[in-house]
């Protein structure tokens, strides 16, 4: 059996999305900036897509900038706003953290908010951190490793009251958490197509009317001058289709809970991240006395694809910055595995994964010098 449980990394492109995109490679391939009929057809199609993407987060179509993905969107939002002081969290995606660090080297002050053991920030610390020079608050909508859903509405309200623009990286949240940029007072939002069964290399940055950004890619003035480059028509159409398909019912949350329950039956395991305010497709479990890479590779042999943010997986050898921010000791973070579901995940796959994980953990613990009864 092949089981793909690494949907937080990327997802299968939905067949409906591929079908939609195909047309824009081989038939409607014209440049949407061209004045001829073919070009205008392409423009009509992509502008319609822009409308439906905007609608999904309750934004206006002209507030959507098409980009190459979440990383570019985060870079544009954070670097483009030209803030003297930025507030973010310790558990952001590297696209946000590294953008902040790059600015920090040039003199921008950055505040990295702490998180509690479930990955939630202290709103009082956020309030206390805002000062006259604060030009941006950037806090993710949901965490990619441990699935924590952050309180966007409360953060948005604080930012609005203090007059500070609020950006959120919603790459993991889009389609899984209701997002309303107006009700939540979100000024900028990054999203990506390939996490929701759309194509890779396609994303958006929502920028509220009135927010001024310095573009990072200059050229022909596309996307209101904010992001030059010929529109990725197939990608845009694919993202709109993926968003449309998102509305379909799914049972990810039920399967997630089944997986959590099954895995926690293994002795000396714990769930990383919150039980409640958690993405419907994220499971992250720490298995004591063993190391994540071994678990990943043994599961891979059983046909199951998972991921680990722990030391040895990424070749960086550093324990996950997210797990460390939760207060886990490095030795506790090493044995952590993330299982991320999609709407295509089946009950049989989850059952198989629970059974195989039990075997793998037992096997690795037999090899380990720790956790033995004697």
């Amino acid at each position, binding site marked *: 059996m092949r089981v793909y449980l690494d949907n937080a990394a990327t997802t299968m492109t939905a067949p409906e999305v591929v079908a939609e995109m195909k047309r824009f490679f081989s038939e409607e391939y014209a440049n949407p900036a061209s004045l001829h009929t073919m070009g205008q057809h392409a423009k009509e199609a992509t502008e319609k897509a822009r409308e439906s993407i905007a609608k999904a987060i309750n934004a206006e179509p002209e507030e959507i900038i098409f980009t190459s993905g979440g990383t570019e969107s985060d870079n544009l939002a954070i670097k483009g706003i030209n803030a003297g002081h930025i507030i973010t969290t310790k558990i952001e995606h590297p696209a946000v953290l590294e953008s902040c660090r790059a600015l920090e080297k040039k003199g921008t002050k950055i505040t990295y908010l702490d998180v509690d053991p479930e990955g939630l920030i202290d709103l009082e610390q956020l309030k206390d951190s805002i000062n006259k020079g604060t030009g941006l608050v950037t806090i993710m909508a949901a965490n990619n490793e441990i699935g924590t859903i952050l309180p966007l509405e409360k953060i948005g309200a604080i930012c609005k009251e203090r007059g500070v623009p609020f950006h959120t990286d919603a790459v993991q949240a889009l389609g899984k958490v209701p997002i309303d940029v107006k009700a939540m007072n979100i000024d900028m939002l990054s999203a990506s197509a390939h996490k929701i069964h759309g194509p890779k290399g396609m994303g958006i940055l929502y920028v509220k009317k009135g927010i001024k950004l310095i573009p990072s890619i200059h050229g022909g003035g596309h996307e209101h001058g904010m992001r030059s480059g010929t529109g990725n028509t197939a990608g845009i159409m694919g993202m709109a289709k993926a968003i449309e398909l998102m509305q379909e019912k799914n049972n990810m949350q039920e399967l997630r809970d089944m997986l959590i329950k099954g895995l926690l039956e293994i002795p000396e395991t714990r769930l990383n991240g919150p039980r409640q305010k958690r993405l419907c497709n994220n499971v992250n479990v720490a298995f004591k*006395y063993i*190391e*994540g890479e071994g678990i990943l590779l043994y599961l891979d*042999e059983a046909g199951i694809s998972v991921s680990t943010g722990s030391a040895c997986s990424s070749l960086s050898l550093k324990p996950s910055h997210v797990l460390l921010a939760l207060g886990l000791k490095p030795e506790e973070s090493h044995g952590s595995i993330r299982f991320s579901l999609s709407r295509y995940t089946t009950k049989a796959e989850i059952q198989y994964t629970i059974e195989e994980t039990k075997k793998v953990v037992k096997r690795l613990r*037999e090899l380990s010098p720790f956790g033995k009864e004697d």
Partner: protein
Amino acid sequence: MALYSEKVMDHFRHPRNHGRLKEFDAVGKVGNPTCGDVMYIYIKVNNNIITAIGFETMGCAAAIATSSMMTELAKGKSLEEAEKITRGDVANNLNGLPPVKMHCSNLAADGLRIAIKNYRKG
């Protein structure tokens, strides 16, 4: 799996000489849990020859494979021969390791030397 050689994967899938020996004369402990790699090497010595060897390892695939390979290299050798086994010997016999794994996960030869030292101390 492009990350590791087939030989590494073979030793990771089917570790040789794993587990604590029922009877052993010395143990060498190396590594630390903070880094994620810990190895315990158990040896049984008869007439200066390592007649039995076992390992327990917490760590990545490379850590398990290097432990396994080291035990194969050391088994049946005299203490003097065994302590000459280097990290490089272990890696070479596994057809290489990714550069980043050469230091942190390739501790088995060190563990063996500590076991031999402990044996000599009595």
